[in-house]
């Protein structure tokens, strides 16, 4: 369960998050949608304790991320890039991440196999393609077999088979009872994957609800998204 409650944050002179509130529930895939620069990544960074909000709270299973003991066993996060130092091999990266949370080192090889990187496990992360970096990032998110997954633009950089794999991975994760929150600006790719939708634009939540509720009166999720963000004056 993820609970975002009245988050606000100002950077320089611009208000990048303005009273943002929503929930992501267990057993469901929640799509956090909005144009580039709308505040999706900023919200996720606050949720993961990377950035401080000016006001409001972001909780994972009722606890602030910073207060979670061994957080990777509760929540796995995929941000842009792999997070691995480019001089380090994928396996070396995953092994220190595992050690930091008391996760057995053998999990590194298991998650590398899950994301299809076993053959490249000894390659330096700096030599990975964009798609491979995303897979390595996902491998790190899965290390602790967490009950919550937070994925920022998870299909960016993936080829068609990778996108297909990611979709079924997300659906399977929710079917196993996990809370899945993913951000994206690609509506068409997500319509078949999400159960709930939260739309953000210019730092404010425009709408939230089940996929059926949000698309009600619109032909597709994409149409609904453009109609909702056009009302708030988004430009492309």
């Amino acid at each position, binding site marked *: 369960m993820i609970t975002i409650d009245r988050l606000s944050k100002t950077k320089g002179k611009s208000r990048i998050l303005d009273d943002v509130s929503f929930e992501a529930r267990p057993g469901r895939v929640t799509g956090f949608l909005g144009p580039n620069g709308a505040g999706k990544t900023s919200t996720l960074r606050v949720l*993961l*304790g990377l950035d*401080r909000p000016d006001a409001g709270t972001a909780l994972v299973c009722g606890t602030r991320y910073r207060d979670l003991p061994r*957080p990777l066993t509760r929540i796995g996060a995929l941000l842009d890039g792999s997070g691995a*130092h480019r001089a*380090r091999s994928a396996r070396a990266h995953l092994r220190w991440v595992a050690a930091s949370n008391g996760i057995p080192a053998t999990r590194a090889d298991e998650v590398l196999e899950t994301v299809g990187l076993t053959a490249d496990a000894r390659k330096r992360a700096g030599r990975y393609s964009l798609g491979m970096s995303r897979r390595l990032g996902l491998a790190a998110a899965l290390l602790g077999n967490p009950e919550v997954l937070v994925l920022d633009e998870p299909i960016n950089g993936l080829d068609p088979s990778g996108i297909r794999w990611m979709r079924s991975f997300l659906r399977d994760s929710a079917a196993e009872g996990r809370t899945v929150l993913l951000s994206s600006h690609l509506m068409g790719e997500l319509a078949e994957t999400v159960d709930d939708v939260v739309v953000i634009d210019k730092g404010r939540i425009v709408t939230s609800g089940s996929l059926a509720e949000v698309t009600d009166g619109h032909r597709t999720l994409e149409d609904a998204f453009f109609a909702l963000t056009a009302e708030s004056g988004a430009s492309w």
Partner: protein
Amino acid sequence: MVTAELRKLLALPTAWAGLAIGTLLAPLIVLINARYTHAALVDGTYGDVADLGLMDLGIGLIGPMVLGVVSISSEYTPTGEHSPGITQLHATLTAMPSRLRLLTAKLLALVLVVLAQAVVVATAVLTLNEILHGDFTPPLEPARIASALLYWVLLAVFSFAIALITRNGIVPLTVLIINSTFVSVSYLLTKVTDLAYYLPDIVGARMFIRGGAFAQPISPVAAGLTMTAWIALLLAIGAYLFHRRDA
């Protein structure tokens, strides 16, 4: 967490460069200078032999400097051309979100590695001096040797604190290396004011060097306390900034 930080530090090629250079440099210099040093000792032009051996532990400090800086700067290196704004720090903080505990683990890992390096260097240098110039070496003083080891560790922590404030590796490392090798700004400042003898890199060596190269009398304990105070101040500033800044 300390295990994770040890794994991180020791899997970096730059850290191994710091370990190799820092460990090998002082014994190599002792060997290269052996003939000249011995001749000077025999004809009495060497000067005060009280620091023979210990003086050589002032060489190779590039090792702890590199290790201290890299421990932090590696967190801020972009992870790849595909995601220039993303660094290892994002992975580190999602794995270990308590920033002060993370810093403590990083410091402990650094201290362990640098202390091990300093012990190896001190053993090699003092043994070599005993073999090469055994008739002239002063009796071993455990307190002075311990002070030299402490100096190596403190210098690593000093470099760590500067990198923590600057969030960068190249600038602090360039300044530290130039200051300790080519042109010592701190030493030049001592020509202007006696207060410069209390700058961290100058005062630290006074913990174990007794020779007459220093005009200002500072006791080893006062030297150690002064360097520790400098480091405590820089670490406090660095930790405060690290705690407050967005990652």
